[in-house]
């Protein structure tokens, strides 16, 4: 009998939720054996999720993980909460339905670059546009892993894969710019290889009300090994990544002696030691700017010319879809009274037949 040991029944040994008891990482570990390839970036993401969840002081039964199809989408089986492993690309739509039915739940969507940006792009854009109160984690390893190594919509131009032996002829989609174009209210990028940054970003995403869109750069050991190696280690990465901090000038590199300026909306790197540009001319990050222009400029920074920006690009308070929906329902009941089905059926012209 061959049977995988993911999914299914709850860990019945676990106690029922008790608001007074502080939950720990262990409470969110499901009894299922985790089945990702050795060295997969997903392990790190799972571990940080399980660390962040207890911090949120939400009863365990109120968490729901919804996923699509792909390596990343196996994650709900490994988190001991409610979970729904749905169909390819549709997790944002299913999760929206969950929030319509019960806005009090903390709903997380787990998707990947194929699931969320190829077959399910439409749902992702519209969910972000509606600002449904969800946390969307997009694991980006720039490759199709579950189907064993075809290029994905985020693969670099020219990349050679099983389905592109002569190199891809497609320009990649940029997830952050797409989320900004959809007027995302929380848009962030982090990297699986930096657990501290990942955890901090996840926690901020979880605390944001509205759609939190987090792109998580992640290695695929088997089919795209080393895709984000440049950004991995703190030492090697100093020149290759720039950390976004609200209200602070954009500086990076050893001793933060490099910075980003912009002329005619074109970003430029300045060396603060050799250039004549004073540090005061550097761009200052503003995640609360109403205009997504600066965020889009930063999202487009790419090696080899530029470092990759990590952190929160945008964080705005705007009404959520689910709160507006609930407000319309309570508003209608206040205005017209709680619905009475007898009145509903007897509305309009009626007549009696004796």
């Amino acid at each position: 009998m061959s049977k995988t040991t993911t999914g299914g029944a709850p860990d019945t040994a676990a106690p029922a939720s008790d608001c007074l008891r502080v939950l720990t990482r262990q409470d969110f570990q499901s009894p299922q054996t985790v089945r990702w390839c050795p060295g997969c970036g997903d392990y790190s993401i799972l571990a940080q999720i399980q660390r962040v969840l207890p911090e949120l002081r939400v009863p365990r039964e109120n968490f729901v993980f919804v996923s699509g199809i792909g390596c990343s989408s196996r994650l709900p089986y490994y988190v001991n909460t409610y979970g729904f492993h749905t169909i390819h690309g549709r997790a944002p739509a299913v999760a929206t339905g969950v929030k319509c039915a019960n806005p009090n739940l903390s709903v997380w969507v787990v998707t990947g670059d194929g699931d969320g940006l190829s077959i399910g792009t439409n749902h992702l854009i519209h969910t972000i546009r509606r600002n449904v109160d969800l946390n969307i984690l997009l694991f980006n390893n720039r490759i199709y892993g579950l189907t064993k190594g075809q290029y994905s919509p985020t693969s670099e131009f020219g990349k050679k894969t099983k389905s592109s032996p002569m190199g891809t002829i497609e320009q990649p989609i940029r997830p952050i710019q797409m989320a900004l174009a959809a007027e995302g209210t929380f848009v962030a990028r982090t990297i699986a290889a930096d657990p501290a940054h990942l955890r901090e970003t996840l926690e901020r995403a979880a605390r944001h009300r509205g759609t939190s869109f987090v792109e998580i750069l992640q290695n695929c050991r088997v089919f795209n090994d080393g895709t984000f190696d440049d950004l991995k280690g703190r030492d090697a990465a100093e020149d290759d990544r720039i950390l976004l901090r609200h209200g602070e000038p954009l500086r990076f590199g050893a001793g933060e002696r490099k910075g980003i300026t912009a002329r005619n909306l074109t970003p430029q790197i300045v060396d603060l030691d050799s250039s004549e540009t004073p540090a005061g001319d550097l761009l200052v990050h503003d995640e609360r700017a109403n205009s997504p222009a600066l965020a889009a400029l930063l999202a487009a920074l790419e090696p080899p010319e530029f470092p990759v920006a990590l952190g929160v690009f945008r964080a705005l308070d705007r009404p959520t879809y689910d709160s507006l929906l609930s407000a319309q329902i309570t508003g209608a009941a206040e205005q017209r009274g709680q619905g009475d089905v007898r009145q509903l059926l007897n509305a309009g012209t009626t007549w009696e037949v004796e």
Partner: protein
Amino acid sequence: MSTAPGNGRELLQVQHATVRFAGDSGDGMQLVGSQFADIASLSGSAICSFPDFPSDIRAPVGTLGGVSGYQLSFGDQHVTTPGDAPFVLVAMNPAALKVCLPELQKGGIVIANEDAFTSANLQKADYGANPLEDGSLDDYRLIPVPMSRLNDEATAASSIPKSQRERCKNFFALGLTLWLYDRPLQPLLEWLMRKFQRVPEVMAANAASLRAGYNFANTTELFRVHFQVAQAKLPPGRYRRVTGNEALALGCIVGCHRAGRPLVYASYPITPASEVLHELAKHKEFGVRVMQAEDEIAACCAAIGASFAGAIGITGSSGPGMALKTEALGLAVMTELPLVVLNVQRAGPSTGMPTKTEQADLLMALHGRHGESPAVVLAAASAGDCFHMAFEAVRLATKYMTPVLLLSDSFLANSAEPFRIPDISSLPELCVPLTATPENFAPYRRDPQTLARPWVPPGTPGMEHRIGGLEKEDVTGIVSYDGGNHTRMVALRADKVARIAADIPLAELVGAERGQVLVVGWGSSYGAIAAAVDELRREDQPVAHLHLRYLNPLPRNLGELFPRFERILIVEGNRGQLKTILRDQFTASFLQLNKVDGRPFLIREVRTAIQELLSRE
């Protein structure tokens, strides 16, 4: 027909009548048609009506493409369709006359707005000569009325702008028609008072035009006869008029209310299902959460997500939209969640004829998913039945934790009939499997009777679990690729749906208990079959009618009923889909009457087919 004195003219008694109002899409024909239907209903007649909208969004004024019609049949209880052919045609312009004349009964009445028969309008309708003058209408009783002019005179005292006064002429036409059928004006005057409460000038102008039309008919010599139509012997109770789409929405609201769960309706706009979306969006005070999704796929997925979270997820669509939902329906089958899917069928494939009716999605509803993927399939027989079947869909979906597909169609969606308002307390209690407790909980531990798995929405402490599209191990719900387990789960899912046969009504014969011909139908062919069989029975012919409202599972007594008849005629708006299903399961002499011209069956089409079978040796 018998005669009685009335206003110095002949008053003929008739059992039923069919009238069509036709004009330009801006002439207000839908409004006067539906008002006439209400007046006929209030006077105790049975009615059945069907609008015929132009398919263009806004065709040029006066053209053939812009003709909007509203046909209704009213009279005794045998009225079950909007009528095969109108006896009275009210034509507001030449295009309306041209489009509708071919269907008018020979000897029928044409009431034409002669003021609209100008050379420009005649040209737009491709008339070489004026049909009111060239003798081409000699087979009919032609009554030309200068409606535009008379309406102008009747409303001259009004302060509203002339263009707005001109638009009152539909009420002039309605006044004429009400006199012709000996119906009172009072209920309509009261309706106008309510409708135009805030704009008394508009109310007064419409009322003046209505009275003028009525009085004109009453005093002129143009009308030598008028008609008194029989009342219907309908079951006692309070009635209202509903269209199929309204009734679907009402059935869903009442069903979810009865189940004590919130309704989440996720849908993408599509003809002819959009009115369900509009109707449900109006009723937020019932906690109805309506989501207009980005596409058909998202609509179905959001409904599934809502069901997972403890609401009753409902989605609705038509034709191509249903094709897009297929993958998600498989997920609902696999995860065994309650889901109601309304399919208001239209003529396909592909974009097909979006405003025309067809019943060609039966096989798709039964089988249109990959894998062994059983679902409950229901079909409403009439506009009012849409309410009961929507309620039934909610009942079965929740009790058995299964997707339920409910078939309606463009004809039912738009046709209207009297609907006996049910007493809420008489509707069945719904039993919802929300009773699991953490002790011994497993997501696929089934109720031994219904085989339903427990419904445990997120937010329930102590029973956190994961479901999904992957095959699950029996009972535990752990992902399983074991062949033996899959075989068992496929059988369990099929058995669960099959067992519902014990929980649905037996099929009923209307007419002969046994005999020569049994007519079997499903969905909107009901009205035409019922009327045709009824006519033949009154002529003592050995025929019966059996109408299927449950297509999967089928009622459990069909195997007992079919052998009682020599021949079984299956009437459906496709090329023989139900016949395929029945022939697979039963041995009988199945014959078929099919139609795919985008229109509902006519009574005479069904009657002719039955008579042909009766005359066979």
